[in-house]
């Protein structure tokens, strides 16, 4: 299997097989919170893809050239989260100033992402992940791609969830189930539906 094949495997794994939300339980707060309307879900999704990709890149470098080199892995959490928080805040300010249109559709979601497990999660997972052979550790490109695809996976389920919830808004859900309970049940059903992707040998 060439590298393209590896990328394909990585994509399928990140999007479907090991979906961040449904299989890894990461990024649930925005998944449950920002999935009421399709357009905000899309904005959020794209912002997450952006930040996850960027964060994967930067944290990979920090990990490799600072933490590993100086044997400071125990500072991983603090270094990563600091970087991510600053990065996101910086990007937000830049977009807000220079691309107001983009800010209104995407940028407003950025602060929401700082405190999203998915971003820190992907950064940490990248440092411990292996390619499909189970041996080769991720290199820089692998990490970036994994960040990107994981973001895509997040977006896919976020959009599906938003679609479902917009439909649920127009149905007669029993009162005590309305709101969060039904959203959780839907999430459970989605997770079950994603079981079809388990055990793929690609």
């Amino acid at each position, binding site marked *: 299997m060439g590298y393209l094949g590896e990328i394909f495997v990585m994509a399928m794994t990140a999007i479907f097989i090991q979906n961040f939300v449904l299989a890894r339980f990461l990024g649930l707060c925005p998944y449950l919170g920002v999935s009421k309307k399709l357009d905000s879900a899309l904005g959020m999704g794209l912002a997450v893809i952006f930040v996850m990709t960027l964060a994967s890149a930067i944290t990979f470098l920090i990990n490799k050239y600072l933490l590993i080199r100086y044997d400071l892995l125990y500072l991983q959490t603090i270094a990563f989260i600091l970087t991510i928080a600053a990065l996101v805040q910086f990007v937000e300010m830049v977009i807000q100033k220079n691309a107001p249109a983009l800010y209104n559709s995407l940028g407003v979601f950025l602060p929401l992402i700082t405190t999203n497990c998915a971003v820190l999660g992907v950064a940490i997972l990248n440092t411990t992940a292996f390619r499909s052979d189970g041996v080769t550790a991720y290199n820089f490109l692998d990490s970036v791609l994994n960040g990107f695809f994981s973001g895509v996976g997040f977006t896919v389920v976020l959009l599906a969830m938003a679609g479902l919830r917009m439909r649920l*808004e*127009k149905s007669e859900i029993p009162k005590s189930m309305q709101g969060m309970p039904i959203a959780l049940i839907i999430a459970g059903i989605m997770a079950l539906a994603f079981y079809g992707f388990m055990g793929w040998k690609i």
Partner: protein
Amino acid sequence: MRLKTFPGGIHPHDEKHYSASAPISIMPTPPRVIVHLSQHIGAVSSPTVKVGDTVLKGQVVAEPAGFVSLVQHASISGKVTKIAKFLHPTGIMSMGVEITSDGQNLSVDMPDDPDFMSLDAAALKARVSAAGICGMGGAGFPTHVKLSPPEDKPIDTVILNGVECEPFLTSDYRLLVERADDILHGLRLIMKIVSAKKGFIGIEANKPDAIELLQKLTAKEKDLAVVPLKLQYPQGAEKQLIFAATGRKVPAGGLPMAVGVVVQNVATAVAIYEAVRYQKPLIERVISVTGSIVNKPMNLLAPIGTLYSDLLEHCGGVSAPIGKAISGGPMMGFALPALDAAMTKGSSGLVLFDEKAAKSMQEHTCLRCARCVDICPMNLLPSMIASAVKYKDLEMAVKAGLNDCIKCGSCAYVCPAQIRLVQWIDTGKIRYAEAMRNK
């Protein structure tokens, strides 16, 4: 032969047997008529008579209040006894002129002009306008307006709508078989007025004798053709008919003239012929009084303004209690709160249901079976519109096609969940209009 048709549509039972074979008979002069001032689309006509005036049959009782409006004539002779709100065939209360018959049925002069074909378009149009004709196929658009397309919209085709796709109704059918010549005269006149080169007569396949007759009559005329159409509702709806006959698609929100077509009902054609030849105003029309409980279903040539109750009485009343009285056909007609509504120029039928047929079933949650979607002749998403309206999401309703619905009723007809789709859509249109007004 492959019959022409349009995409979508349904096949309701046509139920025309009750009155199909009853020749047009003349309704005796009723004791009183009510000439509604709003029989058409457009401004309400303004009355020119006072209570107490005596009028002759054919005399003007109201003038148009603008270009898109209509002149109204007395349909019997007698005395004006009241100008007030009366029950309109659409079920609401609306201004009308009540004329009590003097029993003599005296008419204004209606001279025969056998040379009518030599008149020029302007003169023809003037006669149509003076006769107060509006579309008799239901919509009631003033005909002289329809026949005055703007310069930049040349008309090349006139389609006569002889489809009568509504179940039960047979008035157009009787005209087709009894007055085919007059219809063809009317068609020629319309073609002349709009200088169209081609004339079609669309007839549904369930009227084979009418098709045969008209085909015989038009056999030698190259520019006229009978278009036999597949039995499919709403074959008679303008856009669908144009598509079936010519393959042209009227743009959404547009009028037939956008594709060079004028559509007129066959009864309108007859009225045009009579208006031009005899300068006869539109004061009577054929109406089907039918339904399983009507003792003698008939096609009556009745003065405009005759009360439905009088029509029914002439047809021998009913054999069982009335559950629902429908002005027009059962797919698009209006259920009346009472029978004392007076017919207008667009009243093509009175259909009576017994109590059992009047009851409808409990509305259910939408199953999303998509039957409505599959048959919608306008290619809309009726169920989505309805649920969007129900949950007050107007934006979604518009996206799903709220403003393109022609209210043909096909969707509600097929819905297994008995959802009153058309009424929801209607409610949506009301809400939409309100929202637009508040903007």
